[in-house]
């Protein structure tokens, strides 16, 4: 893996990326150290991958397939994920038996795993993916949704160190719906890439999430939502929190092809800076070739609203608690689209735990640390 060729920050799409840790991680081997595997959320199918290999003892394969997956990508990181992986294929009108869980455990080194989710007409599924441990986890996920198929996907990036890179490539047919929500909260860096194509009329796609960064961490999302048919709707709701000297970057693009009249697209990118020297980068981009479209985008960066803090103080809420409350509300916007209650609550609890846990750089309470008005 020493011949790893990675994009540089001189390339426009990688302007804010820092992939410098990857060559060293790629050269390491897995340590095989024990990593605690999170408890199952339900009794649905569950795959546990350790360093990219299936741990059959802790998995419940069910209707899932494990083995070579035929997905290809031109993406500089996604194309590395070839060979053995997993697939979920559901026939017409079928539903997955309960919540599907994929757990990626890393013990060091690099693992590249492709995944395929192919839902035929009217099929539906809910999938949760969790990343824990160490090393570089690189994943390519191809998603194909047939007519009126529905997929809810929630991804939690919670490795304690290393790097997580995701590449999603989706095709969404007429009337189908894809909702992907990402929570990046661990100690590792990440890069989330998405290229979602709405290829059938009146399809719906949403991709969003919360990036929580501290220390010298970097989380980054770069998502393209491409409208290629009439009357489609898309939503991108991202929230970025940056503490210490961390960098959180969001680049979201809506592309509207010439045929995609009556498009309704919305982007909401918001950044919250908890400390001086932390950085939030935003790029809400529109590329529009059709004239009868509704594309709205909003982007803001700042600190917690002083008026809201004042209001809470006037109601007797201590400043630290008030800050924590408002930060939670800020993050919650991006997580509320998760359709499965226990998953949404689980993600919210993880985000809460992050917000109230000590920062490694200062060893004090995270969001509550800085006093009113900074």
């Amino acid at each position, binding site marked *: 893996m020493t011949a790893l060729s990675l994009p540089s920050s001189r390339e426009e799409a990688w302007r804010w990326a820092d992939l410098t840790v990857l060559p060293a991680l790629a050269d390491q081997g897995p340590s095989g150290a024990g990593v605690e595997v999170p408890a199952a959320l339900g009794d649905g199918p569950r795959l546990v991958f350790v360093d990219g290999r299936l741990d059959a003892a802790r998995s419940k394969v069910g209707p899932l397939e494990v083995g070579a997956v035929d997905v290809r990508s031109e993406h500089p990181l996604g194309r590395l994920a070839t060979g053995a992986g997993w697939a979920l294929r559901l026939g017409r009108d079928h539903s997955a038996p309960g919540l599907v869980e994929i757990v990626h455990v890393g013990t060091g080194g690099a693992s590249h795993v492709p995944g395929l989710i192919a839902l035929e007409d009217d099929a539906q599924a809910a999938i949760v993916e969790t990343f824990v441990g160490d090393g570089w986890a690189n994943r390519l996920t191809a998603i194909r949704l047939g007519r009126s198929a529905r997929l809810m996907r929630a991804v939690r990036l919670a490795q304690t160190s290393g790097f997580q890179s995701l590449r999603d490539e989706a095709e969404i047919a007429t009337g189908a719906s894809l909702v992907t929500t990402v929570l990046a909260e661990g100690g590792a860096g990440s890069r989330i890439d998405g290229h979602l194509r709405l290829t059938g009329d009146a399809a719906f796609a949403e991709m969003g999430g919360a990036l929580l960064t501290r220390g010298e961490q970097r989380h980054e999302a770069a998502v393209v939502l491409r409208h290629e048919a009439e009357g489609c709707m898309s939503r991108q709701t991202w929230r970025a929190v940056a503490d210490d000297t961390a960098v959180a970057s969001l680049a979201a693009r809506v592309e509207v092809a010439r045929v995609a009249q009556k498009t309704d697209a919305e982007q909401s990118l918001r950044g919250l800076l908890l400390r*001086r020297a932390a950085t939030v980068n935003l*790029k809400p981009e529109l590329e529009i070739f059709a004239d009868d479209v509704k*594309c709205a985008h909003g982007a803001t960066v700042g*600190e917690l609203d002083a008026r809201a803090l004042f209001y809470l103080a006037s109601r007797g809420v201590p400043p630290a608690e008030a800050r924590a409350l408002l930060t939670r509300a800020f993050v919650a916007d991006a997580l509320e689209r998760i359709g499965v209650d226990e998953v949404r609550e689980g993600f919210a609890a993880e985000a809460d735990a992050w917000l109230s846990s000590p920062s490694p750089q200062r060893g004090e309470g995270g969001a509550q640390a800085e006093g009113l008005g900074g």
Partner: protein
Amino acid sequence: MATRNQEAFDVAEKLSTYEWGFTSDLEQEFAPKGLDESTVRFISAKKGEPEWMLDWRLKAFRLWQTMESPDWAKLNIPPIDYQDAYYYAAPKIKPTLKSLDELDPEIRRTYEKLGIPIEEQKVLAGVEGARKVAVDAVFDSVSVATTFREELKKAGVIFLSISEAIREHPELVRKWLGRVVPIHDNYFATLNSAVFSDGTFVYIPEGVRCPMELSTYFRINAENTGQFERTLIVANKGSHVSYLEGCTAPMRDENQLHAAVVELVALDDAEIKYSTVQNWYPGDAEGRGGIYNFVTKRALCQGRNSKVSWTQVETGSAITWKYPSCVLAGENSVGEFYSVAVTNNYQQADTGTKMIHLGKGSRSTIVSKGISAGKSNNTYRGLVRVGPTAEGVRNFTQCDSLLLGHECGAHTVPYIEVKNPSAQIEHEATTSKISDDQLFYAMSRGLGQEDAVALIVNGFAKEVLQQLPMEFAVEAQKLLGISLEGSVG
């Protein structure tokens, strides 16, 4: 009745083509075609420049040879053969002009046709109390006339072509040239630093409010020439200046390159208002010909409470690559950017601004209106950056796009990079088309379709047009209508 018909024909004729597309038949002096060190030396020698200036140019040229043309913009730029152009073209005029009467009558007629008052008496003959505009006219590579020198001199204002300024005020030019846009800044700015042939230098002394609007008209006339002008404006403490810039070129089938650099410096409490109406030849309806307008414009708000306001109306050029920017280094400094960019037929524009907030309490406002028609592409690209020590920064950005027709594209690429939590950054954008209701209403009141569209477009761009000085606002409104001619229906 016959007269009225004739008038109508005249108007139709005027509207149907690029009105400024004529060429002037002048004896021209060219540098040999192509670009190498000898071209740079030729230009410097022609200008009678001091050694330091030549060294500066050569340094830039050597650097340029190692650089690559930027490719990040949403533009399809055909490869440019830098050897197949003249880098210096000057109308053969007497070496020194004692008065404007000695100006070549053909050049004079050219500017008359363009409607630009380079004759002082013409302005003076106007209504008493009317605002005066001092004009510097740059014809291909050289400045041919600068008016109102005496009056400006009395106020202490220096308004010279940059070649003259290098000769007469070398200390000022040397101090500020390249301070805001350094020679290594970008491919086109570096090229400009090597081969710039003329441009304007303005210096407003401390506490002076420039008594009149200053204006430069750029005109490309000769075939196969590039125009590389350099503008440098320094506003000393507490001064104020309003500067206007207009550009035209003849209609030609080949593409011509215009790579200008504009540097503005505002010291404590100084204010510079810089307005541009860019109307370079955009190419014909099939996309043949037109100017490549690759311009670097940047202002340094160095002083406390300094302010720079960019206003641009971009209707011309086959390709526009232009990002007038403000480096807001001074405490409480203010940057503004108001832009209307219109593209029609096969035009491409990738334009916007950069607001770099370094000073405490600095504020910026960005209002961009993009109008795309025909088969054109119009991109707003902007950057708002807040440094870690810049407390209390405010920025408001609004980007609106209007699409006329279904074969054009409107794109928005805003970058927001914030390192200070006290910053308040807001970005809003909309994309829309002219609603049938609006059009129907305007037409039911007796307006023709073209006029109705022009009216609605002017309304859409109103926030920006209001920022223009009176003389330009009228011209800009007219231009918007003409540029969109034939785009509807």
